[in-house]
């Protein structure tokens, strides 16, 4: 299906990609049902709080250097700005740059829900522009503004006549989607439609979609072997850099869930190849990914030389740790990008995946293919149990209680703590580069090993705390609250 790059509201992953947030079964069944079109996600009649797509959308955009995000809604919506501010400053400082991005709220009141606050929003955007002279402005809606029908598209259209920098409307009504990753697509869409310019010349660059560029120096060094430079997106990127990403040789990403929309959009609109391999996590992922890059930029020989040199350094060390990890049983809960990628890596390291919980599942990506990490597992690994749940913690603890694994791995704040309270060691795979390439795969293996070897912290804590769920719940089947949709 062609992407709709001419409108501001792109719809959700549920609608575009058939994505789901409720499923209990196994890998093969999930894939079979996806293929024959019978996969219908369930909805829960009981759930716990999770995440809002606006956090993903505006979190991404506010990483861009020297822009303004204006979040039109009550103060609770824009409160994200206070957290983002710290991260933005720290991430910029690490790189030695200054990021003057601002995140502004509109403190919508009860009166505004009746009469609308379009005029105020207009004035706030103008004032923000006067104060900070941002290089681009992103104006976002919220649940409240969405329901009362505030027309942010028209307000933005008017503002374009008054303000001489790119302005985009971002449709962030939280009720639209259970899948917060829809927010990544919204941010990509805004960048694609308002900032990226038509290519004038090819540049020796590769777009690298990631979160916080923690492995920046290593990747610059890596790509130098092949005479290309990475352009990291979006944290610390400038609007000027973004305007040229249509001129790059290719787009790669650290996470398929994160990079899918931008990668496909740049390919469809500007012919920038999108590298759709499994992601560069673990040895197999890294090599597969790097070889594909080599093919696309015609540096296959150099890539092969690099791989052989690095293998000789790291593979023996990885094999050594692997001996200690062999047979450990793991449960993991992550976004679907990482769930299926990390499942592969754990198996590469000799561990057994007993349950993988994905926070959502995309039946297919923007180009119509099933996600490559899933495809790889289906072809190469034993079947294992899978659930799809938007961070439903009570389900995770039920799984842990039933399967009693040696290790729980999660990638979202507030999740690992519950595993350790139940007495299971947990690894927080927060940094997107934690398992990137040979060196970090080795470091990750050691982190797992250290976690398993010293269980003091979780044992001490688990002994002292009571769990928040009733005994009744631990005796129930996992899909108790999951109602099939018609």
């Amino acid at each position, binding site marked *: 299906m062609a992407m709709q790059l001419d409108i501001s509201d792109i719809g959700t992953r549920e609608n575009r990609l058939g994505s789901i947030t409720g499923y209990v079964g196994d890998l093969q069944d999930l894939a079979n049902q996806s293929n024959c079109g019978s996969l219908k996600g369930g909805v829960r009649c009981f759930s716990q709080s999770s995440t809002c797509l606006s956090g993903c959308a505006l979190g991404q955009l506010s990483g861009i250097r020297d822009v303004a995000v204006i979040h039109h809604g009550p103060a609770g919506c824009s409160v994200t700005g206070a957290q983002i501010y710290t991260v933005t400053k720290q991430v910029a400082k690490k790189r030695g740059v200054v990021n003057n991005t601002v995140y502004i709220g509109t403190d919508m009141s009860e009166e505004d829900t009746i009469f609308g606050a379009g005029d105020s929003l207009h004035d706030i955007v103008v004032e923000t522009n006067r104060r900070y002279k941002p290089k681009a402005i992103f104006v976002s809606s919220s649940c409240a503004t969405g329901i009362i029908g505030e027309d942010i598209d028209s307000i933005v259209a008017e503002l374009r006549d008054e303000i001489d920098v790119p302005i985009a409307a971002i449709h962030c009504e939280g009720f639209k989607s*259970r899948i917060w990753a829809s927010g990544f697509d919204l941010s990509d869409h805004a960048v694609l439609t308002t900032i990226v310019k038509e290519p004038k010349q090819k540049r020796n660059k590769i777009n690298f979609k990631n979160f916080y560029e923690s492995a920046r120096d290593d990747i610059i060094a890596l790509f130098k072997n092949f005479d290309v430079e990475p352009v990291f997106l979006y944290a610390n990127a400038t609007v000027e850099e973004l305007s040229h990403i249509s001129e790059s040789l290719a787009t790669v990403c650290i996470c398929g869930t994160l990079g899918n929309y931008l990668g496909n959009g740049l390919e469809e609109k500007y012919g920038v190849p999108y590298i759709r391999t499994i992601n560069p996590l673990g040895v197999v992922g890294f090599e597969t990914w790097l070889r594909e890059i080599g093919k696309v930029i015609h540096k296959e020989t150099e890539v092969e030389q690099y791989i052989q040199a690095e293998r000789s350094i790291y593979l023996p060390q990885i094999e050594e740790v692997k001996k200690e990890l062999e047979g450990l049983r793991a449960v993991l809960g992550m976004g679907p990008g990482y769930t299926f990628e990390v499942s592969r890596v754990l198996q590469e390291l000799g561990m057994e995946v007993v349950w993988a919980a994905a926070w959502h599942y995309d039946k297919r990506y923007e180009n119509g293919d099933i996600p490559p990490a899933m495809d790889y597992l289906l072809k190469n690994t034993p079947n294992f149990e899978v659930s799809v749940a938007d961070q439903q913690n009570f389900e995770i603890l039920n799984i842990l209680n039933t399967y009693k694994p040696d290790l729980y791995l999660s990638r979202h704040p507030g999740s690992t703590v519950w595993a350790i309270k139940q007495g299971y060691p947990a690894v927080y795979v927060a940094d997107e580069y934690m398992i990137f390439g040979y060196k970090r795969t080795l470091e990750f293996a050691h982190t797992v090993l250290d976690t398993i070897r010293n269980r003091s912290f979780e044992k001490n804590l688990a002994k002292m705390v009571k769990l928040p769920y009733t005994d009744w719940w631990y005796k129930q089947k996992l899909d108790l609250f999951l109602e099939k949709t018609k």
Partner: protein
Amino acid sequence: MAKILDKQRYKCAMGAMSTVQAIERAIPVLHSGAGCAQKLSNSSGSSGYFSPNIFPCTSINEQDVVFGGEKKLHSTIENSLKVIDADLYVVLTGCTPEIVGDNVDEIVADFKDAEKPVIFASTPGFKGNNYQGHEWVVDAIVEQYLSPTEKKTPGLVNIWADVPYQDEFWLGNLRELEKLLAELGLIPNTIFGYKRGIENIKKIPEAQFNLLVSPWVGLENVKRMQAKFGTPYLHYPTLPIGAFETSKFLRAVGNFAGVDQGKIEKLISEKEAYYYYYIERFADLFLETRVMSKKFSVVADAQYVLGITKFLVNDMGLFPAKQYIVDDTPKQYRNDIEGYFKDLNYDIEAAVEFGVDGYKIQQEIENTDYHGYPLLLGGYWEKDIAAKTNAHFLNVSWPVNERLVMNSYYVGYDGGLKLIEDIYSVVKTRFN
């Protein structure tokens, strides 16, 4: 009306989920968007018995917007009672159900005979901020959970202070206020934090009086309790930090409670002697640190602006530049609060401004002559302007980042010493 929130200092009313979270074994049940709780939570002391990702939530979707979310709210409450092991379930509403008109009162009423109490506070984000949301949650407890009682316990004092989690030092401050009252021979009763909770909530109507230590937050609550339970209240607007204010505080509370004068004065003189043992030993440092000047500004909620201003003026002999209150204090309280800033030693009066536009505040600070390095106490936002103006900067009010607060506090005699420690730990990073 909508206004520019540049350098935001508060959350929306549903941020009061943290007030519920601060009560042991009480859990918020949210009728809201799936991501509201995550946004409104602080990652600071949040993984207690319940954390925001344990809070049940109806996770409102498009269908609920069109057809209403009452059925989903019902099943969410019903199953919360089965799945979550809590003693008090507090339903909080976000924006959407309030705009589309879900009848939440009626759904909650269905659970009046449930095994555990289920109560409801309306907290849509557009109705107010989390300072007000906090008051609405306490009101809901008073109105829906508690009944008047004949039984009164002499000496039992309910203590109410500022907002849990919004005030990074909420827990330590409350504990220290309790200790001060206990030293007067009173029986402090608070509902937030370790081993307080439901049992203490039940004691609220028995108290001899309510003590409110806040410039304005909670005033509605103590008035409501006076009307419902006949409990008188003492409103002590200033968070007592350091010797001067804490001694004044002890006298005010002691007198109100009818504590023997001699006992009050004995306690105060012991405490002041202890406090000045430390001050004396470090007085040389305070006088002879060449980078420390006299002028300061506080950018914070009303409680810290007032509390810290009084401490720095009356205890430390500093001089106030303009002070900035950024909690969107309701207009009806502003006159009184301005008055408190006129009651400083040597007839000093501090200029105080109410505003939520951080940009304007920082511009003013930049254009103010502090006659030396400014001393700036504020939110994390002030870090930048402090760097620009060469100020000594201490992050005391929300958002508090880049420092960890577990159980420390600024209240009382020891709290004053702690604040001095924190200020001078910054000041001492410079020689000249």
